[in-house]
């Protein structure tokens, strides 16, 4: 009596694929978290004469001016490390403190300030940041811009 042909189930090992998928998930989870600390999501204005921003100065404070979040007709607000500053004096005090900390840690020139303002934000709000920098005694200020084809 001929032997019945044995049916073999087609199967493949998915273990490696699950490992790689978990690695990808962990990678994207970590990358997403790190991107939000200092840099707010906004649209920088384009400029032709802007220069490369890397490597970043050792002690730099990023001040964001985002659009579409504030109350009232201005709809712009100043955000530093996810903290909103309504008054110029408070921002000046914060920057002065950061500058003092940097000098105490050996940075003789103090801090640089980078103003990342949305292109649609009101210039009056950026003026407040500039005034706060002046009050804090910070002279080196740069304005964030999106690269534009020259």
């Amino acid at each position, binding site marked *: 009596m001929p032997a019945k042909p044995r049916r073999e189930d087609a199967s493949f090992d998915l273990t490696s694929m699950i490992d790689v998928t978990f690695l990808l*998930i962990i990678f994207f989870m970590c990358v997403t978290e790190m991107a939000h600390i200092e840099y707010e999501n906004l649209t920088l*204005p384009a400029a032709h*004469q*802007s220069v490369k921003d890397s490597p970043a100065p050792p002690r730099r404070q990023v001040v964001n001016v985002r659009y579409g979040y504030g109350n009232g007709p201005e709809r712009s607000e100043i955000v530093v490390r996810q903290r909103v500053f309504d008054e110029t004096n408070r921002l000046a005090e914060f920057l002065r403190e950061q500058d003092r900390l940097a000098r105490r840690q050996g940075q003789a020139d103090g801090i640089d300030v980078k103003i990342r303002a949305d292109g649609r934000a*009101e*210039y009056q709000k950026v003026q407040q940041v500039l005034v706060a920098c*002046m009050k804090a005694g910070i002279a080196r200020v740069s*304005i964030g*811009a999106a*690269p534009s084809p020259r």
Partner: protein
Amino acid sequence: MAATLEERFKDPELCFTSLIDIVFLLLIFFMCASRFKQVEEKLEAFLPNDGNRTDRTLVLPPSELTIFVRDDAVMRESDSFNIKALRKATFYLGSREATPVTDVNRMLPVLQQLAETPGQRVLIALYDEQAGQDQRVPFFNVVQVVDACKAAGIANIAFQAPAQPR
């Protein structure tokens, strides 16, 4: 019916189908939720280091050009939809009575002539500084002025502080 010897010593099997489905859903979620870092550049500026002095009467250098920026939007922002991107600015070179300029490129010849003399400074100021004015100058217009100054070769660019403390 008693289990056969083969069935009794068969390796326990786990069904991974649901796990793979959930894992792929999570992966797609994080791929969509994460954003690529925007390549950024910068425009350098230097502020006068005057500490806590709020006096706006600065000693002007011998030659300085003030560029007044004015909100010249045709349409106003409404609550129903955002048309902020359509707001434009008008530029006045030297004084508020000067001929208004809407295209920044038309300022280049004046700025290039200014740049020929060393020590020139450009001061960017608002046309209407009184509190309560419904003048909202979008920041990208000011960046256009800074960009034009740098293209003309003027490195000394200053920003006038607002008239009233905020």
